[in-house]
């Protein structure tokens, strides 16, 4: 788990500098946003001079999937004090969610220790992300400019999406959003992403509704 985060964090740090972010902002983003793929998208949009509202809207859309993780986690921590809820929400990432989901499936954690297990996993990921980002920022200036670091983003998304496509409805969602994204790829600042994702979600919603 941690092993996958470290190269990604280093690539992010280097990419952020190459897209014109200053080192302090690149590091602060890892703390404030703490969402690897959204940080990549932020840098790419910032690098091409996208308007601020477009950046916030696209980062929000990309992170909307975390609401799904929030919904999965909510019933288990409903009885915890607010300071726990706020901390665990802040630490909620793709990787943290994958860790809990896997551990839960194996039934290895008692409910008493569960929160500590989750906090430990979350803080481990958090620390690795901050450190690897810092290493990337330090090394970034020395990397050759023609290294295709930006390709880490599609590769990471492929690694997340492929295992998720478990049925024909989800395959249709992927096909529709992929095709619409291609058709609208000419729009500036990746704005086609907003339309394509909404089209895919609508198709999924309609297909799932008609099946039930």
């Amino acid at each position, binding site marked *: 788990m941690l092993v*996958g985060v470290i*190269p*990604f964090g280093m690539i992010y740090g280097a990419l952020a500098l190459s897209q014109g972010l200053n080192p302090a*902002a690149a590091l602060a*983003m890892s703390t*404030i*946003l*703490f969402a690897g793929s*959204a940080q990549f*998208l*932020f840098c790419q949009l910032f690098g091409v001079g996208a308007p*601020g509202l477009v*950046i*916030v809207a696209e*980062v*929000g859309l*990309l*992170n*909307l*999937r*975390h*609401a*799904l993780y*929030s*919904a999965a986690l*909510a019933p288990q921590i409903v009885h915890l004090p607010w300071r726990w*809820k*706020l901390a665990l*929400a*802040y630490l909620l990432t793709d990787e943290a969610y994958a860790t809990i989901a896997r551990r839960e499936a194996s039934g290895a954690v008692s409910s008493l220790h569960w929160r500590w297990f989750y906090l430990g996993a979350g803080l481990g990921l958090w620390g690795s992300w901050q450190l690897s980002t810092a290493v990337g920022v330090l090394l970034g200036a020395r990397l050759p400019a023609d290294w295709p670091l930006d*390709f880490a*983003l*599609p*590769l990471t*998304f*492929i*690694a*997340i*999406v*492929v*295992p998720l496509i478990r049925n024909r409805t989800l395959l249709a*969602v*992927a096909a529709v*959003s*992929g095709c*619409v*994204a*291609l058709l609208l*790829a*000419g729009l500036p600042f990746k704005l*086609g*992403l907003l339309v*394509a*994702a909404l089209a*895919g*979600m609508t198709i*999924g*919603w309609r297909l*799932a*509704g008609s099946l039930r």
Partner: protein
Amino acid sequence: MSVWLLIVLCGVVTFAIRLSFIAAEGTFTFPPGFRRLLTFVPVATLTALVIPDLLMPQGTLWLAWDNARLTAGLAAIAIAAITRSVLWTLVGGFVVLWIGS
């Protein structure tokens, strides 16, 4: 907009999304249709970002084996399906991209 304000805004939006269901549990119920819509969010958003990167690396459709990003992406899809590992998908994808370009 300054880069700092942008980072804070993105951070607030992201934190609000992560807190949404955790904060609402027990007091407020989201409509069931919203939950159903959410299940499609990861596949819809991530695929919409990936496909143009692979098929249009230079802005126009490039459907050929010498499109190194396309071949690397196809290899990554196969690796992700088999290993389900982010690390191996990254390593394999970059190796194929490096060989192809």
